[in-house]
């Protein structure tokens, strides 16, 4: 686990950029999924935002 965290710390900018893109693009898809009551899509897309936030926590 140590090495991936070190790798993330060395690539902080790229890690933050990718997380930011996921955090900002996914809500648009979430909005349309919610409008059509596609629960499966909503859970899947929420998982993407959750993962992006978990990803950020590991970037020291």
């Amino acid at each position: 686990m140590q090495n991936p965290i070190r790798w993330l710390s060395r690539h902080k900018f790229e890690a933050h950029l990718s997380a930011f893109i996921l955090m900002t693009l996914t809500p648009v898809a979430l909005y349309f999924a919610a409008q059509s009551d596609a629960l499966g899509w909503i859970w899947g897309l929420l998982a993407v935002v959750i993962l992006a936030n978990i990803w950020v926590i590991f970037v020291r």
Partner: protein
Amino acid sequence: MTLILAFIPIALILFLMVGLRWGAARAGGAGYLSALVIAAIFFGAGPRLLAFAHMRALLLTVDVLMIIWAAFLLFRVADEAGAIETIGKALPHLTADRGMQSLIIGWVFASFLQGVGGFGVPVAVIAPILVGLGFTPLAAVLLPSIGHGWAVTFGSLGSSFQALMAATGLSGEQLAPLSALFLSISGLLVGLMVAHAAEGWSAVRRLLGPVVALGVGMGVVQFFVAISGLWNIAAFSAALVGLVIAFPLARGFRGEQADNGDFDLRALAVALSGYAILIVIILCVQLIPVVKNFLGQVVITVNFPEVGTSHGFVTPAGPGRTIPLFRHTGMVLAYSSILAYFVYRWAGLYESGAPGRIISGTVRRVISSSVSIASMVTMAVIMEDSGMTDALARGLAQGIRGAFPLAAPWIGALGAFMTGSNTNSNVVFGALQLRTAQLLGYSAALILAAQTAGAALSSVMAPTKVVVGASTAGMAGREGEVMRKLLVYTVLLVLLISLLTILGAWLGVQGFPRITALV
């Protein structure tokens, strides 16, 4: 129980940032996750509610980030051209008097840099200048740290104020007057504190005249510019007027050195031209109806249906944050940045490869804060839509009741200290303060002015800012010394805001006459 659960995301951010010294991005991610889990499990927030909350949060995030990105772009355009360095070098030529230097550079110029840049720039730029002038490293960090706090809310071209509007849904017309009044009054005290931090009580007595002249001049300008709707240039305009006032004042305090040498007036004029362009463009967009209407044609708006939790908390249907794309302050800043770039290029101030350095410098600098704002805004909206903010507000209202005006600035201060920024504090606590004010029957404008003023004045001692300042003055590892000194000044300033808020509540202030009906 619900009160404790609702407080967990905020407490977690506080613990992670202050206790474990995590950065805002990491803590924001953790806060978001905790809010999501608690909202879903304990507050009955279903997937549809959470999905719409994410989209609502995205609009607020874009609204705030457009300004932050473009403000820093303009700063980078000027900095890459050497404009900031030119302005910084010109100022010590005005006077050799140590006290006046501390006022002009540590207070007025720090406020100017906060007005146009922010993000820790005032301390990072000024501390090395002051060290070069012979100030101790501690004073070099302390002076600009104290000096720029009053300009934070309307600084960074209004990003913190924009965040307050976004988080509460209230307009600039409602929020600006009292916020500007509180900060302008505190600005005068800030000037006295800068003099005190530089040379003690003797400097306060000796420089009382210049402090009053500069403080009143800058405060009045910030107030009137903010209430006239130009809140995004309120701190910047105030500091610019402060610099103008400082010229004649410095003549009376030239110090022992009779001849302070010449400085290149043309270079100074060119350096300031980028910001002159900004003023002209903002005035054109705000005051010329044809331009205003033309740029306001494209509006991003998203309608949301009514959603509710399984516990019965309902968020009514309605549009989210509306963004007038080409008239947005962020776009106005972008136009100014492009024009300023061409002016500086025409003046031959750029070396080859400057555009690439400007863009990459901007993106690299803002991406971390963009992530933290995205996480924290989403956390705040989830808390709001799931009823967590309402539960917190009800608990707060029952717990402190009449003492709320006293506590409101300290809540803002706590938010700024823990998140490192006035903007984040407004995002995290804005809706909570608004809801509590409504429950207790206090003026929303008054309480939110206390929130943002408390946050602005205490943001200067956030660990993240202190670390940046200390490192640029060669004090890395001695941040504790800076924080101990800053603590006294900050507590006094937030106390002043508490007293003003209590006074406002006692007088029954609802806002200013022309906005009373809206509050």
